[in-house]
C-alpha cells in the first residue's frame, strides 16, 4: 500500500494536470484514497459506456468517411475498392437529386427559423404573463411535440390527401380535373410538409423560450416599466437581449432539426420529387433499390461536415462557459 501511495504521488507530481489546473476545485487527494479495486470500478464505469458509444457512433461515423472514398457492393471486404474523390465528383456534378436535396435542407432550416421560431417566442411571451389557463394553452401548443413524426405524417395526410383530404374537400378541389395534389406536386409538397413541421416546431420553441423567460430577472421588467417603456420596448430592449443563451440553443436545435428531417417526409411521400433531403438520399442508398454503399456514405459525409460546423463551435462555447462557472 505504501509503495502504491508513493508511486501515485510521484505520478501526480510528474504529470501535472492540464492547463487550467489552478482553477480546479476538486482536490487531487481523491486519487490517493482510491484502492486498486476502486480504480478498476471507475475504469469500468466510465469505460463500458464509452466503448459502446464510440464503437456505435464515432467508429461508424469515421467508417462513413472512409467508405465515402470507395466503392463496395457489401459482399466481402475484398470487393472494397479505393476510388478517391470519384463518389463526390459524381455526387456534385451528376446527381439530379443532390443539389435539390441540399436546397430543401436549407429551405427547411430557413422556414423553421423564420416562421415557427418567432411564433413560439411570441406565444411564450404571451403565456409568461401570468394569465389564467396558461397551462391549458401550453398543453395544446406542445401536444404535437410529444407525438412521433410518423404519426404527424399520417395525421396531415388526412388534411392533404387530394381525394379525401380536408383542404381539397373544403375548397371543392377533390373532383377529377380540379385536383390539387399537395403530396405529389413537386411545386407544392415541400411547403405542405413544412406546414406540418412548423406546426410541431412552434410548440418546441415555445417551451424552450418559456424556460428562458423564467430565468429573466423580474426586476429588469419593473425597472423598464418605471422608465416608461411600453411592452414592445421592454421586450425589444430588455427581455430579448437577456434571452441570448436561449437564442443560441434555439438556433442550434433548429439547424439540427433541419439536418435530421426524415420521418415526416418519408411517411408523407417517401421523399419523392420535390421533397428530396440529404437524409432521404442516404437512406435510399441502403434500403432503396440502388444499394451503393460508397456513394451513400459520400452523402453522409456532406451531412456530417455540415453538422460538425454547427456542433463543434456550439459545444466548445458551452463547455468553456461551464468551465468558468
Amino acid at each position: 500500500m505504501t509503495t502504491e501511495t508513493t508511486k501515485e504521488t510521484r505520478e501526480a507530481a510528474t504529470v501535472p494536470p492540464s492547463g487550467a489546473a489552478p482553477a480546479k476545485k476538486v482536490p487531487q487527494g481523491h486519487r490517493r484514497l482510491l484502492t486498486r479495486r476502486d480504480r478498476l470500478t471507475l475504469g469500468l464505469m466510465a469505460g463500458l459506456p464509452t466503448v459502446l458509444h464510440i464503437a456505435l457512433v464515432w467508429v461508424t461515423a469515421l467508417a462513413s468517411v472512409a467508405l465515402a472514398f470507395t466503392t463496395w457492393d457489401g459482399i466481402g471486404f475484398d470487393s472494397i475498392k479505393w476510388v478517391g474523390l470519384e463518389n463526390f465528383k459524381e455526387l456534385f456534378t451528376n446527381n439530379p437529386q443532390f443539389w435539390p436535396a441540399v436546397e430543401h435542407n436549407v429551405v427547411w432550416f430557413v422556414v423553421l427559423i423564420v416562421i415557427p421560431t418567432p411564433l413560439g417566442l411570441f406565444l411564450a411571451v404571451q403565456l409568461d404573463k401570468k394569465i389564467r389557463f396558461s397551462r391549458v394553452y401550453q398543453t395544446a401548443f406542445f401536444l404535437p411535440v410529444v407525438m412521433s413524426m410518423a404519426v404527424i405524417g399520417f395525421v396531415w395526410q388526412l388534411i392533404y390527401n387530394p381525394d379525401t383530404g380536408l383542404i381539397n374537400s373544403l375548397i371543392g378541389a377533390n373532383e377529377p380535373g380540379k385536383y390539387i395534389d399537395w403530396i405529389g406536386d413537386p411545386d407544392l409538397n415541400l411547403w405542405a410538409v413544412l406546414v406540418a413541421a412548423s406546426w410541431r416546431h412552434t410548440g418546441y420553441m415555445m417551451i424552450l423560450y418559456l424556460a428562458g423567460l423564467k430565468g429573466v430577472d423580474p426586476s429588469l421588467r419593473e425597472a423598464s416599466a418605471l422608465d416608461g417603456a411600453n411592452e414592445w420596448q421592454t421586450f425589444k430592449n430588455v427581455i430579448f437581449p437577456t434571452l441570448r443563451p436561449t437564442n443560441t440553443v434555439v438556433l442550434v436545435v433548429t439547424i439540427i432539426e433541419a439536418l435530421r428531417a426524415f420521418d415526416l417526409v418519408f411517411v408523407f411521400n417517401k421523399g419523392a420529387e420535390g421533397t428530396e433531403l440529404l437524409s432521404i438520399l442516404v437512406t435510399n442508398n441502403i434500403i432503396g433499390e440502388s444499394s451503393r454503399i460508397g456513394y451513400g456514405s459520400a452523402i453522409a459525409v456532406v451531412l456530417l461536415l455540415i453538422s460538425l460546423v454547427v456542433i463543434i463551435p456550439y459545444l466548445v462555447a458551452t463547455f468553456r462557459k461551464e468551465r468558468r462557472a
Partner: protein
Amino acid sequence: MSSHPSPTATLNEALRAAPPNVMTKPRTPIRPARILLHLFLAGAALAWLAPLLWALYSAMRPYAETSEKGYVSWPDTLNFDNFTNAFTQSDMSHYFVNTMIIAVPAVLLTLFLSSMVAFYVSRFDFRVNLALLLVFTAGNLLPQQVIITPLYRLYLLIDLPGITMSGKLYDSALGLVLIHIAFQSGFCAFVLSNYMRTLPHELTEAALVDGASVWRQYWQIVLPLCRPAMAALATLLSIWIYNDFFWALVLISTGENMPITSALNNLSGAYFTDPNLVAAGALLTAIPTLIVYFVLQRQFVSGLTLGANKG
C-alpha cells in the same frame, strides 16, 4: 449573461413550477387587452388541435358513410369501430409488445450507463473528463443518417447465433436497444453530470474517508440524490424511443419484428384504401405517448428544457 440559469437550476425551477390549472395568483382586474389575449390564445390553441381533432373525427366515422357523403359532412354515426378494427385486424398489441421489449431495457440501461459516466466525470476530475463529455454530447447531436450506412453493414456482419432470432445483430431487438443506448447516453451523461456537479463534494469525500468504495458512493449516495433528474430523463427517453421511426425502419427487416411506430408505416400500406382506419391506427399509436405526457408533463418539459442542446 449572469441571469442565465444553469441547466440544473432550470430543472429545479421547472420541477417546482406550479401544478397545472391551480390559480394561486391574486386575481387581476379584467382588462380588454386581457380578454383579447385570451380570445387569441384560445383561437390559436384550437387551431393547433384542429389537425388532431380532424383525425379523431375521421377515425370515428364508418368508411362507407364518408365515401358516400364526403369527409366534410355531418355525421350519421360516430363510434369507435375503426379503433377496434385497426387494433385487432393489424394485431397492434403484438407491435406494442415489440416496442416494450425494445424501450424498457433501452431506457433503463441508458440511464444506468450514462449515470456512471456522469458520476465519473463529475466526481473525479481526471484530465479526460471534459473530452469524454464532449465526445458523448457531440455524438448525440449527429444526424442519424451520418452513421447509418456503416452501422447497417456492421449489424449484418455481427453473427449472434442462438442469441437473437435472426442470428445477427441486424433485424433484432438487441440491435435496436444497443443503438438507442449508444445514441441517447450522450445527452443523458451531459445532463446528469451537470446535475451531479451541483451536489456538494463533502458528501462523497466524507464517504471516501470512511472507506466507502467508489461503487457505494455512486449507488448509495449520488444516485439516490439524482432522482428528479433521472425521472425527467426517463420520461423523455421513453417518449423518444417509443417515437423512433428511423432506426427500426433500416435495422429491422422483418415486419413482425418492428416496433409500433415503424410498423405503422406497413399497416398504412396494407389499409391505404381506408383512410379512416389508418387515422384510427395512427391515433392509437399516439395514445401511450399522450398518456405519459399528461401524467408526467412536468418531468417531460423540465427534461427537454434542461437538455436544450438536444435536437
